[in-house]
């Protein structure tokens, strides 16, 4: 089985599923934002899509669920969907279990969060106290005080914490899962002595490297970070001579195609990238790579949406489109796939020839493409 990355059309919200070669399923974010009472809401019924997929493979759990950060557009309704260990209220038939929960340190440390963000925080805290089923992304020292308050030593929990610049333990391209994850963020630069936790900056940014045949395919998951954080990641990565860890064949565009992830000025027609972002997009891209915007459709110039300060931004999209043109690649928007009239989850297959975005063929499913005949002798006509 080849690995697959499946993006869900959720407007400006995220949920990406990784199906690994060995059958493991990983979920990156979960935001079930569709309004079931609005028939014109084209966003996918996420809980149903994911449940159907799990049922078809006879599973009741994800091996990993990663919340890159706890903004509502990344965890909306998660408390209604998952089985959570910390309270009986979140346990019951039909809830989907999480073998290992992955969160940034902010998700543990932050106070005053609400709704699903609070519930996920409680679950993460519960699991960290218990000492299993959890991975926290952070500089270990950052968690020292919180652990002490809860009567735990840093030493006893160190194996559950992964710092930026490290691979997530337990994954290798040489083993059946054929994938490894390199963590870029959260990183120390930003997290020292912050009075207020800016959640987007404490997002988990990582590179997944898949191996199929002899071909490595890299996917950059950029969460919701802004250009300044990107510049810092680029600078740090270059300093550590780790530039191959920023190569990409698949690029999950940051923050629903916001210009602020590219540069400080939106621009009239095209956002001008910061130095780090420019290098990341233009130098680190591999030929025919795919850029995926998990967002609403890109607004038409002069439309109401175009004047809306919220992403996606036409000028940001224009920059990404220019990037993919340089590499003969593709720029896609989740809400436009396969058609804006009826968006459906879209999949990128990781093959021995690299990333292949699947279009029509996946929708059709079981229909026939046979080109031979059932009766002997009828070939020549």
């Amino acid at each position, binding site marked *: 089985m080849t690995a697959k990355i499946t993006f869900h059309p959720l407007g400006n919200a995220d949920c990406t599923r990784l199906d690994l070669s060995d059958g493991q399923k990983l979920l990156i974010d979960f935001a079930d934002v569709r309004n079931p009472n609005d028939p014109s809401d084209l966003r996918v019924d996420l809980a149903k899509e994911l449940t159907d997929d799990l049922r*078809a493979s006879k599973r009741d759990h994800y091996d990993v669920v990663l919340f890159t950060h706890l903004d509502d557009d990344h965890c909306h309704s998660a408390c209604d969907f998952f089985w959570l260990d910390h309270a009986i209220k979140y346990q019951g038939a039909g809830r989907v279990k999480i073998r290992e929960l992955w969160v940034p340190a902010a998700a543990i440390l932050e106070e005053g969060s609400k709704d699903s963000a609070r519930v996920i925080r409680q679950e993460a805290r519960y699991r960290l106290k218990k000492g299993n089923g959890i991975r926290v992304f952070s500089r270990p020292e950052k968690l020292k005080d919180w652990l002490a308050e809860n009567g735990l030593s840093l030493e006893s929990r160190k194996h559950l914490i992964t710092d930026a610049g490290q691979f997530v333990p337990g994954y290798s391209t040489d083993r059946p899962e054929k994938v490894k994850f390199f963590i870029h963020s959260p990183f120390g630069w930003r997290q020292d002595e912050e009075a207020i936790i800016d959640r987007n900056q404490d997002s988990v940014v990582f590179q997944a490297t898949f191996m199929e045949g002899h071909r490595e395919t890299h996917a950059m998951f950029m969460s919701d970070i802004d250009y300044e954080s990107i510049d810092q990641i680029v600078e740090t990565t270059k300093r550590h001579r780790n530039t191959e860890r920023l190569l990409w064949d698949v690029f999950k565009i940051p923050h629903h195609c916001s210009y602020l992830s590219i540069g400080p000025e939106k621009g009239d027609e095209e956002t001008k990238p910061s130095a780090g972002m420019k290098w990341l997009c233009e130098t680190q891209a591999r030929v025919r790579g795919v850029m995926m915007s998990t967002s609403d459709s890109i607004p038409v110039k002069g439309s109401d949406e175009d004047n809306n300060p919220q992403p996606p931004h036409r000028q940001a999209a224009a920059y990404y489109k220019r990037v993919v043109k340089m590499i003969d690649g593709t720029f896609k928007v989740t809400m436009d796939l396969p058609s804006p009239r009826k968006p459906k989850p879209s999949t990128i297959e990781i093959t021995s020839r690299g990333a292949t975005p*699947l279009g029509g063929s996946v929708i059709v*499913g079981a229909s026939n493409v046979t080109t031979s005949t059932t009766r*002997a002798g009828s*070939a020549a*006509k």
Partner: protein
Amino acid sequence: MKLHNWWNDFGKELSDPDKLSSDLAKELVSQVTNYVVPGVNIVSLRQSAAMGCSGVFINIEVERPQDLAYPIQAVEPIAVILPFDKRQPSVLSLREDFPDTPHQNWVPSGKPRALCIDDRPWEEARLTATGFDIVRRIQVWLSNASRGELHDTAQPPEPLFFFSARTIVLPSSAMMENPEPVELVGIIHEDNPNFVFTIEASYVGVPPNITVVAIKARPQDQERIRHIPNSLSSLASELENCGIDLYDKLKTVLRNWAGIEDSEIQRLSTRLAIVVTFPLATEQQGPVNDVRAFITDQSAGEIGVALGVLHTNNSNVGDCRAYIAAIPVREPINQELRVESAQVHYRVSREIAAMLSGRKKPDNRRAVLVGAGSLGSQLSLNLAREGALAWTVIDCDILLPHNTVRHALHFDDIGTQKANALANKISGVLDERVEPICCNLFHPDSGSHDRLEKAFKDAEIIIDTSASVAMSRHLCDLHNVHARRICAFFNPAGTSAVLMVENTSRSITLRDLEAQYYRNLICDRRLIHHLETEYPGVRYSGSCRSLTNQIPASNAALLSALISQGVKRVLETEDASISIWTLKDNGEIELVNFDGTPVTIKSTDEWKIVYDDELVSNIMAVRSEKLPNETGGALLGITDMNAKFIHLVHALSQPEDSSGTRSGFERGVFDLRNQVTKAMTMTMDQVRYVGEWHSHPEEALATPSPTDLEQLNWLREEMEFEGLNGLVAIAAADGSFSLVLSSDVLAEVSQN
């Protein structure tokens, strides 16, 4: 990217899709503009009344990997050219620099490249052809091209050259290693001027008109040539790449042929056929040859003069038609020497022995045989040798050398029309006139029309041995023809023979039996391997469809004999039946018989939906087993997009993660796709998912509930891509059974 000029020269631009004369074109445009087909958009429409074709220019997004096997673009401009008269559409790349890939159709130079998106004969393909299907095949083709997966490893390599209109038959000795070129004599068959049959030159008594020079090229890399050489000079430069100096070779040969003897005069007055074996290197299958013959327009002597090695006999000595060697050799005359290419077939040297002995049983009923192939020829001759039936034979093919391995016709019929030759043979056995009709039944020429009509009208029995699903259905549907239809064929592996016969009243037709046959393949454990094929076919020439099956003559003969006996037996009864004989590895023959089961036909404005008693009783049995709860599952069936038939074939049981209660049923998904795929594989994709069935509890009617209508809407959306309507079948108490078909207007089929 530069677009091919051809498009702008094709007919006139149309702005209104309703003006398109091809219905398929209209459907394609509407499906694309309504986003039914993702990843495609319409660029422009044109139509040429002179060519009788509509043209749809679409941009197609390609699912392609990053590392390309061929330079396929993310978006490819494609023209789909659809003839008004529903003939096969062509698919052209409008990109001027579209790469040279496998699986393209031959095009004259200067025309856009034509993609071969479907190997099946069009008559088969069009049964499922929709605008969506065509676009999807193009997408799959382009995607496979980009991944380097167009070249199925089960197939031999692509030939070096495109298709040749002519055919030449050679003895295998022509290709042996010889120090000197082999000389043969060619005979153009009276029936077919494009068909050249050759024998060794030493064989006397046949006036030569073509002399063959055989050349073996060095193996070379699989770099295909777009167009076949059409002049001696282009052939020479082609051969130069293969390490052969053609001019030098010809000069030597022609000089040696010079002379004033009658044989020399005669030989130099013939045309040259330069036969070249191009060995193709393949990783999987070892060396394979692409053999082509290049026949010159000029005579050997004229070519010798042009090459400067001969001159005409101007002396007073000997015949003035003779050629004399030029001494010294002159400069070649600068003159274009045209050659015409021909596909080479080798003569089959094996004999075919008839293995049947007759058993007399007079039967004067009139029969029409459709398909004079291996089975048809053997079946009809077997029966004729037993004095059975008064025959009319219909076929549109000519007999090729490879046919004779399993055919009842022989070596000396090669190049003749099968129908003529077979009618002759039967006629010889029966000593009565047997009428041959050489025509394509799908497109009969005007000359055959009346004869066909009379033959079918007079017939009491029609025997279909065409090995074509499309033909069986076509024959089944013939209007005002009352003959009982029989259909016989071999499975692709050549290990089973199938005989289907209608009942005399024709209330159970070949279409119905076809559906019942597929259900038996899915359900009967004895038939699980029936449609499996272990070996790919064998190419007998260099075009996509020149595939013949690898079936031992003994299997074909044995199965033909079994069918012959079966036909005799069923002609003694009035009932519908299906018989399947399977040859076992240990030499045993297993016969599985099924009675044809009565069918019910429900019609809407557009569709005819057919199901049979056994399907209903199977469903009722599953329903009873699960009572008091509801149950259900997926429905499989045959859809004929052309004739608008849906035959329900089989109802799958509920997937294990389904939940059925007294008041409702939710079908699960676990293993469902696998089961559907398995059924499709077992029937070689003849059967597909067509909808859902479920049961209602004891007290409820079989009429659809609001939940059922919701399911129907869902189905309609899911199946819209396939140009199909979703079906929901509901089974209730006392055998009551209803069908609901979704289309734009919900049409309920009346209850039993």
